């Protein structure tokens, strides 16, 4: 089954690559089978090929890690079905097939999550997924009423044919549906629990790919349906910009308060998607959004697989239970280091390239306060990013077991090596993908990125040379290291991990030394951060569910299940109808 999955994933990747080279489409009018005015179709555009590539690549990478897990056949089957539904979402040429794909995706994800989630988390997921799907369906039906067609090709026409009230309703429903899937703040209630409790091998897929489907749908909505370029400074633009911004800032601070590794990464996903949503509020922010989608997919696969490896080896998933693993798992440490450098958006690696595009778009449009807030949010992420590596690999081991742990198995390392190689290459040659992204931008009718060679990432505002940055970094690094090594002074290795400066005392086995993992908690003393940490959407949803229960209790009094009561109600109902009819 494991080998079969790897073979299937490679075939999927091959198929997607084949479609990217030779575009194809298929359309069918359902009038033939008696459904008037309904045409469906699939097509392989440059945009859908890009997202299909993300899906296929992620599928292949996680199928390598399945090698070490004993999963049931049902799990594999659902995974195939999920991938197929994702392909349907990206390749569909109309909203009908898109909705079918979306629904299958939501249900198969539910079933896959049901293997490991607690009942409460599962209920949260399905309620939000269904709310998202229903609101999407309503939006699609409204759009259909405009031009009696589900096709994307007619969508802009259909949208303009709607009355302005219906346009607003359509956009609100659509954005609600997509924001739920993206886990924008306030609607992220389901996301953190689902990510943190899902199967370790499935979480990378959940974070890297499924959230990207909402990004894809958002791009289709904004470019092909609404045509955002023609509507600057409308409420849609501000909603997107502010929702994305608030999500990234709040999620970055919320992540500080978490002890579970996967919960921190879940919040980090929300924050990164927040950047994408913000930049999508400008039509020419598409390049930044696509670039960041790619980088986020790669880096979240890397980080979640790394964490899965840690959990596989130690069966611990909290910072407070880990620590000091660096010299036991040096390869994993280096992979996570690359991952966090990219996540932080530091210059030598790929994370900076996408952030650079995003920042430049915002600067160009003169959205200076949003840009400042976004850079602030990005800087505030360093704290949990450092906690991520400190809590697991640095500091001290918190239990005896951790001192005899081995490096993670090869099948966890292979995908990590692959991903970090891609991230380093993109960081070195940030202009490598400009041509590819330009084909998508041309298709969407958006201003292209200037091309100035593979090592330069150019924007209208200026460019930076990734190759020079990384080469200079390496040269300076080597020189400094050589100077340090060539000094006369000898280096003495510390005797053991207790050989540290400790206020003149000597720590021993019993001394608790790994308390650095809870860093960031003292920020509760800062006013605005305390406000963010104290307030939570869960209060609202708990209130809502309490009210619903109260209503259900009341309703149960009337509809008590007692036959005579039911009969009486039916009689009263009939009487009312009769009186109404007589009048």
């Amino acid at each position: 089954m494991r080998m079969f999955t790897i073979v299937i994933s490679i075939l999927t990747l091959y198929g997607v690559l084949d479609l990217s080279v030779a575009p194809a489409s298929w359309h069918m009018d359902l009038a033939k089978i008696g459904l008037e005015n309904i045409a469906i179709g699939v097509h392989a555009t440059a945009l859908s090929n890009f997202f299909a590539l993300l899906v296929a690549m992620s599928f292949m990478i996680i199928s390598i890690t399945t090698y070490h897990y004993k999963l049931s056949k049902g799990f594999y089957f659902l995974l195939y079905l999920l991938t197929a539904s994702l392909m349907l979402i990206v390749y569909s040429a109309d909203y009908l097939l898109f909705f079918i794909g979306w629904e299958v995706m939501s249900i198969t994800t539910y079933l896959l999550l049901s293997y490991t989630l607690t009942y409460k988390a599962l209920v949260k997921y399905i309620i939000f997924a269904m709310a998202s799907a229903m609101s999407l369906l309503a939006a699609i039906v409204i759009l259909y009423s405009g031009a009696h067609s589900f096709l994307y090709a007619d969508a802009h026409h259909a949208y303009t044919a709607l009355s302005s009230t219906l346009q607003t309703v359509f956009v609100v429903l659509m954005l609600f549906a997509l924001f739920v899937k993206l886990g924008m703040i306030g609607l992220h209630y389901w996301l953190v629990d689902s990510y943190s409790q899902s199967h370790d091998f499935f979480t990378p897929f959940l974070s890297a790919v499924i959230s990207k489907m909402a990004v894809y749908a958002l791009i289709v909505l904004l470019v092909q349906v609404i045509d955002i370029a023609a509507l600057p400074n409308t409420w849609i633009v501000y909603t997107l910009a502010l929702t994305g911004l608030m999500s990234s800032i709040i999620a970055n601070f919320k992540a500080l308060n978490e002890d579970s590794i996967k919960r921190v990464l879940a919040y980090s996903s929300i924050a990164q998607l927040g950047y994408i949503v913000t930049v999508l509020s400008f039509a020419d922010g598409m390049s930044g959004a696509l670039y960041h989608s790619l980088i986020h997919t790669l880096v979240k696969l890397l980080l979640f697989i790394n964490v899965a490896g840690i959990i596989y080896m130690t069966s611990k998933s909290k910072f407070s239970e880990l620590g000091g693993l660096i010299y036991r798992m040096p390869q994993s440490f280096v992979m996570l280091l690359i991952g966090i450098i990219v996540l932080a958006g530091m210059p030598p690696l790929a994370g900076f390239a996408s952030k650079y595009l995003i920042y430049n778009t915002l600067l160009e449009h003169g959205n200076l306060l949003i840009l400042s807030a976004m850079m602030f949010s990005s800087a505030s992420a360093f704290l949990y990013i450092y906690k991520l590596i400190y809590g697991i690999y640095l500091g001290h081991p918190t239990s005896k077991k951790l001192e005899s742990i081995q490096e993670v198995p090869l099948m966890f390392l292979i995908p990590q090596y692959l991903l970090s190689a891609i991230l380093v290459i993109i960081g070195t040659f940030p202009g490598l993908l400009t041509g590819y992204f330009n084909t998508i931008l041309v298709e969407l009718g958006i201003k292209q990125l200037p091309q100035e060679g593979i090592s330069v990432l150019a924007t209208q505002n200026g460019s930076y040379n990734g190759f020079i940055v990384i080469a200079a970094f390496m040269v300076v690094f080597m020189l400094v290291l050589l100077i340090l090594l060539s000094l006369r002074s000898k280096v003495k290795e510390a005797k053991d991990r207790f050989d540290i400066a400790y206020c003149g005392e000597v720590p021993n086995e019993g001394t608790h030394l790994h308390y650095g993992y809870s860093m960031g908690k003292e920020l509760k003393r800062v006013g605005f951060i305390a406000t963010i940490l104290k307030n939570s959407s869960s209060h609202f949803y708990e209130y809502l569910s309490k009210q619903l229960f109260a209503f259900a209790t009341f309703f149960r009094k009337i509809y008590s299940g007692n036959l005579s009561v039911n009969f009486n109600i039916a009689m009263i109902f009939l009487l009312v109808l009769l009186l109404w009819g007589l009048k």
Partner: protein
Amino acid sequence: MIIFDLLGMLLTAYFVGFLYYGLYRNITARFQRRIGPTVLQSFFDSIKFFSKDESTSHGWMFYLGPVIMTTGAVMTLFFIPFFYESESFRGLSQYGNLFVVLYLIMLGPLGNAMGVGVSGSPFAAMGITRGLTRMFAMELPFYIAVIALMSINHSADIATIAANQTTINAFAYPLLFIGALFSFIAMMGNSPFDVVGAPVEVYSGPAAEFSGKFLGLLMSQSSIMSFAKLVLMVNLFLGGAGGFIELLVKTFILFLFVIAFGSIYGRFKTPQSVDFLVKVPTAIAVAGLLLATLGGQ
């Protein structure tokens, strides 16, 4: 030859940085009615650290921490042009703009944080937490001011911003300058925002575990980094420099201000400094940004 150019920048920053560090100790002493060490004392200290017989290490990552930090400082220096019009001493600045510099400034401390973390000293990790916490707060007013300048000049190129100043930006946009100045004091690690090192009363701070040549390296990078930040600030707000004399005069004036400010005010706790930085300087910088961008239209 770009190699000589870079070497020249590095040596200038190294020696001027140490000179300034010596002056810092000397001038602070005068504020406190002491005589203080000689100006070259810090330089001698670093040479002494480099020639120590032994230094303790906690494995390869501990070794790399100070190396990455020094690399970060040198890289930051290379991407900041010294003069606005000269062909020489502009380093690698044509290959990356202000966004690159803003991130490179943070590269070193993060690299060093790995080295500190691996040493296992909980007090050192405490210093890192303070540093990272203070970092995002201190960047905010600076970002706002810098972004406003980028928008006004329609460029993210440092040399262009430096050359574009007919009246220097500090006078043309005083609110932006004041906002950025608070951040700058924090970036220089000066009081009232110097809780990270907390050099006197607490046995903590990122440098707690480093000894011998590691400490020497950290000291050297600190002077290089200080000079790089001073040059950046001069370029952005004080009209840049046309020659060495102008550069030295302007950086020294700025440096003197930072020292004087630090000598007068006491130290904030970490949450206090975060609270202060996101309120007062940020409000000033936002006001400056609104005035600068709306007033121009």
